[in-house]
């Protein structure tokens, strides 16, 4: 743990709160969350369904504006950025893996993977995209459209897309949701690999087994966060 403390802070949440109003009732999806994630951390977030895990990562990734509190990425208060700067942060520094299928249906796999580069103003090279598709073992489907892929293949492509702009942070919301164990293992190995390259990972999962692969495990409960120490790698 001593080594961790020397690394720069990547993500900071202070009093992060998101209140939803549904049916006239106010629900705090996350409530006063305080958190620091260091560069190169591998954090797993576990918790019951509805406990606020998705809200937590989407507030971190600049996809949901918190009702209260601040979110800093590398020291920048992201919710004080203007729309262009925030868009740029999303495209350049954060790779997001969604809980559900998230490919653009009208683009083939390789174009889906290259999509983030088009917003970052990069050249979005086909070669780099192919390389990533090989890395997630769906290179043979490069020219296929999302609907021609199995759920597992779609997730692999979505992960390749999240990695395309070489983000410093990966936010993954149940990235192996309903996948078979082999695919799940492939993706977990890929995350280990990417984390080994210094990328910070925050992964939501409801599987304690998967959570044990992370260096840190956090538990969400009713919108609040509790730390339950390190996963297996530090045990």
């Amino acid at each position, binding site marked *: 743990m001593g080594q961790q403390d020397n690394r720069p802070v990547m993500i900071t949440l202070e009093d992060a709160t998101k209140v939803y109003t549904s049916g006239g009732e106010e629900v705090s999806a996350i409530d006063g969350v305080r958190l620091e994630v260091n560069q190169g951390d591998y954090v797993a977030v576990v918790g019951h369904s509805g406990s606020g895990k998705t809200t937590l990562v989407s507030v971190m990734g600049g*996809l*949901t504006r918190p009702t209260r509190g601040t979110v800093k990425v590398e020291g920048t208060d992201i919710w004080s950025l203007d*729309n262009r700067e925030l*868009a740029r942060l*999303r495209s350049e520094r954060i790779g997001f893996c969604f809980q559900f299928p*998230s490919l*653009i*249906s009208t683009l083939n796999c390789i174009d889906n993977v290259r999509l983030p580069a088009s*917003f970052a103003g990069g050249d979005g090279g086909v070669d780099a995209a192919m390389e990533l598709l090989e890395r997630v073992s769906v290179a043979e489907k490069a020219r296929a459209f999302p609907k021609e892929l199995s759920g597992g293949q779609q997730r692999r492509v979505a992960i390749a897309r999240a990695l395309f702009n070489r983000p410093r942070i990966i936010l993954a919301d149940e990235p192996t949701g309903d996948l078979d164990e082999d695919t799940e293992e492939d993706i977990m190995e890929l995350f280990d690999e990417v984390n080994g390259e210094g990328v910070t990972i925050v992964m939501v999962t409801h599987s304690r087994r998967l959570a044990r692969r992370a260096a840190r495990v956090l538990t969400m409960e009713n919108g609040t966060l509790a730390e339950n120490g390190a996963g297996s790698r530090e045990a």
Partner: protein
Amino acid sequence: MVGIDPETDFTVGPWLEEHAGGKLADDEVILGANAHIFFGKSESHVGDVEFFYGRPFKVVGILEATGLGIDDDAFITLDAAYELSSESNVDAVEKADIEPGQISTVMVKVDPRYDRADVARNISLQVPGTAGVTSKELMATSLSRQLQTLTPGLLLIGAGFWFISVLMIGALFTMIVNERRRELGLLQAMGATRGFIFREVMLEAVELTLLGGVTGIVAGSVLILVLKGPVADSLGVEFVWPSASYLVVFTVGYLLLAALTGALAALYPAVSASRLEPYQAIRSGE
């Protein structure tokens, strides 16, 4: 060939006064738009000298195409016509057979308060040797007057349809945006700016209405090609294409209007699409 009395003529006379600044002289001719075809030329110009029955005439004016029979006519003075006729047995290959003083037609401009058919009947009864007829061809003037009174109504109906189409395209794009909320949110998550989302929606709308505009022009042209014959026949006029420059201006203007329609209709959906909070958008339809 039409010989007219420059003193009393009201058909080409006023035009001549306006365009050539005077009355027709005995050695001058005004040509209908297609008259040059009859003397085997591809076109005629003001100032040219053309021969009719061996007699030279200076072209002082060429009429615009009207779609009427007068497009084929050449107008000279009545005196010139008599002279031409009497000399034609000497000068021309074929003799023109008109006796001096002979008149084929007297045109009568009827005060709009009187019924033309009544006037025609009375002339036939009171002037021996004449047959009063109402001219179908001259109806072109009343036809264009009728069209002129119809035009504001047609414009109003057109504006109404246009307004409805703006609303309908707007509704369509609101639906499209709603259906694509997820993907629009995903694009934002990947770094698309609000401006990008706005432009995407607008572009798509403009593409759609431009396509509609092109379809409209093609369909309209086909309709004109198919119907111009029957309609012209039933109205007793000939179909005249507008000039090329008019067609170009019309086409470009029409397509611009189509694009503008799309932009206007998609404005609200595009703005609301660009304002979606990414995660809310992505989550919709989950």
